[in-house]
């Protein structure tokens, strides 16, 4: 039981910090929101995309916790590149799928940073994240599958080169996961830019015809695997929120230490010092919950660790709001403007709270797992 960063963890964090210093120096809320293909290539070259992928699949074979630590270290960049959704949804599912020519080709391109892959699973914008029914249907027709349905909240859906579409086979309950190229006839993708610079899409599949090998095979039921990918997404969103909260703390502390009013630096006021301490205590709580969720995810897998992931995700929302509100307040009026990064972080934390299962949904999971009723 060691809570210090191991050398390989520290090396990963250091490489992330170096990249941030070199390429993510924006200091305002609404600067660069466009995806940078060159950056993405660099992530691939550094091996980051494959952090938690099996070595046999071309990844680094590191545990989920290491990816989580990397996500936390990258958070201060508040980058427009969809690292979190790509590694936890696309990366997780491609890694879990059984080898096949189609999967191997897709994964190689994804790992090389040449292609993005988006999970198209949810079907309504208002839907909860976990345990949702799938109405999209794949009908077998000779050697082909014909897919009909609608998908919503597809992160990176417009930018992705391929979609991973969940669908029912014929009238059965069996769920499939299908690789659908962005240019497939009958596929209609409507892009939406989110308030925090992410991209998601609504997707219509109007008789999209796929060959049978578009179907990814899994050792376990597809629904179980998708559920696990979503838990992993929640875990990494919580780490992104932790890193973002820490960045906000730093900005706020710097501001109070620089800003002078009434003839003194604001940080000299004890009331403000204690506000900073309470922010730090909130961060410490989230750090501890993530340490627990990481350990349990590595030991038992993300599905079995769901209650601890839920705890971390809930607390990420609570702590994220606390840090965002206090950071704006401590900065004063300038904190409301797009002149600073504060607003960018605030929006990012807010979006993190809405994705990967809200606090309300994870609270339900947590209560059920711990028999709190």
């Amino acid at each position: 039981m060691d809570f210090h960063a191991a050398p390989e963890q520290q090396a990963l964090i250091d490489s992330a910090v170096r990249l941030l210093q070199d390429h993510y120096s924006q200091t305002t809320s609404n600067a660069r929101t466009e995806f940078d293909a060159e950056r993405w290539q660099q992530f691939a070259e550094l091996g980051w995309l494959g952090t938690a992928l099996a070595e046999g699949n071309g990844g680094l074979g590191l545990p989920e916790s290491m990816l989580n630590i990397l996500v936390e270290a990258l958070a201060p960049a508040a980058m427009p590149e969809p690292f979190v959704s790509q590694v936890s949804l696309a990366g997780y599912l491609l890694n879990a799928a059984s080898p096949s020519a189609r999967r191997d080709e897709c994964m190689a391109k994804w790992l090389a940073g040449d292609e993005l892959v988006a999970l198209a699973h949810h079907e309504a914008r208002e839907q909860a994240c976990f345990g949702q029914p799938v109405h999209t249907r794949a009908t077998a027709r000779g050697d082909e599958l014909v897919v009909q349905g609608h998908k919503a909240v597809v992160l990176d859906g417009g930018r992705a080169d391929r979609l991973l579409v969940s669908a029912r086979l014929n009238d059965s309950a069996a769920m499939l996961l299908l690789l659908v190229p962005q240019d497939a006839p009958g596929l209609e993708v409507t892009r939406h830019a989110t308030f925090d610079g992410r991209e998601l899409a609504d997707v219509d599949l109007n008789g999209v015809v796929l060959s049978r090998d578009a179907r990814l095979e899994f050792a376990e039921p597809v629904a179980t695997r998708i559920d696990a990918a979503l838990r992993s997404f929640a875990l990494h969103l919580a780490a992104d929120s932790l890193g973002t909260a820490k960045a906000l703390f730093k900005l706020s502390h710097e501001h109070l230490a620089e800003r002078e009013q009434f003839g003194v630096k604001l940080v000299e006021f004890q009331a403000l010092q204690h506000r900073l301490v309470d922010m730090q205590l909130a961060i410490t709580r989230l750090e501890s919950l993530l340490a627990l969720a990481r350990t349990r995810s590595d030991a038992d897998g993300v599905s079995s660790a769901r209650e601890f992931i839920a705890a971390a995700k809930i607390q990420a929302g609570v702590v994220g709001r606390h840090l965002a509100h206090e950071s704006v307040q401590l900065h004063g009026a300038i904190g409301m403007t797009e002149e600073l990064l504060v607003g960018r972080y605030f929006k990012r934390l807010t979006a993190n709270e809405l994705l990967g299962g809200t606090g309300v949904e994870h609270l339900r999971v947590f209560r059920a797992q711990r028999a709190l009723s």
Partner: protein
Amino acid sequence: MLFAGQLSDEQAQFREEVRAFLAEHLDAGMVAADDAQRSMVADPERSKAWIALLRPRGWHAGHIAKEFGGAGLSPIENYILHYEMGLHGAPALPPMGLYYVAPTAIEFGTQAQRDEIVPRVLDGSDYWCQGFSEPGSGSDLASVAMFAERRGDAYFLNGSKIWTTDAQHANKIFCLVRTRRENTRDALSFMLVDMAAAGVTVRPIRLFSGDHDFNQVFFDDVEIPVEALLGEEGNGWAVAKFLLDIERGAFVFGGRLRRRFVRLCERAQNCATPLAGLWDKLAQLDIELLAYEVTELRLGHAALDRSNADAEASVVKIEWTELAQRIDELHIAISGPETLYADAAARGASTRDEGIAMPDWLAGYFNNRAASIYGGSNEVQRNLVYRALKQQRRR
């Protein structure tokens, strides 16, 4: 539960050993009495009985090295021992002798002092209390005014100490006193005083709960030998600070808080006055309690070598006291008029309960408002945490 898969085989085996011991030796009466305890402070009589059972293994002094009569457990083993004892409702151990005096005497004492003090703490001959706060020195501890005047081979003490927990039970008191008139820290010294010495009087301070936890101790020209000095004259602040810092290595609140939380949940299940969103509130508390358990281990026990140790101890102190108070607060929020009846059934046998009729848990709610005041108020703790944040920013 928390540590499944995280403990080494050896540590897991130690935990099993602790659990087996508790199953064998911790009887239901002891547990019930502990659950009914009206403050977080150990009860002298019940802790004495429990210590007698722990003594053969040295587990009453797990953190003290074997050569001094303790069990010499590693920080993690000590954590496991105390977490499990708290979780299973074992009586709390009195901290003043075991956690404060013995390690401090080992660190600062002469050989003669070690030989005299440590065995008597460990075998229960001495029961210590703490003479730090004074009427004019609460949070600002370094301003203590009680004076020790050197005359020949003796010191003569004049002044008073206040908020002295269990002075009514103790036969010894350790004091932070002033040995020079200057208002500097190097004018402070650390002294060990016999409560039976002529000129020492104890006045009880009753709490609004009716309980008697605290006292004021008066010193009227109390003569003590120079050998009663622990550490050198003028080095008292360093000794006191060491004493306050070591609590992080020995205190574990996670298990006790977890037990308190579980009992609150039991009460919530039989609650006549349901509170809207009660179980969501309990879940949020559970989450923060989980966070605390990891924080306590991470900052308090797994990282004893860290540089900003005292700030981390402050974080742990703020967190456990405020969590404990929130658990109690939710308890009052789900209670109704039945609480106004203090039936005998709702009361245990606390030696400090001196007679205002109320349920034990309610007295606990009142008494534990002190938790965020004692041991350095949480405002002082926040000052200390901020000081560390300031240093971090400069680095």
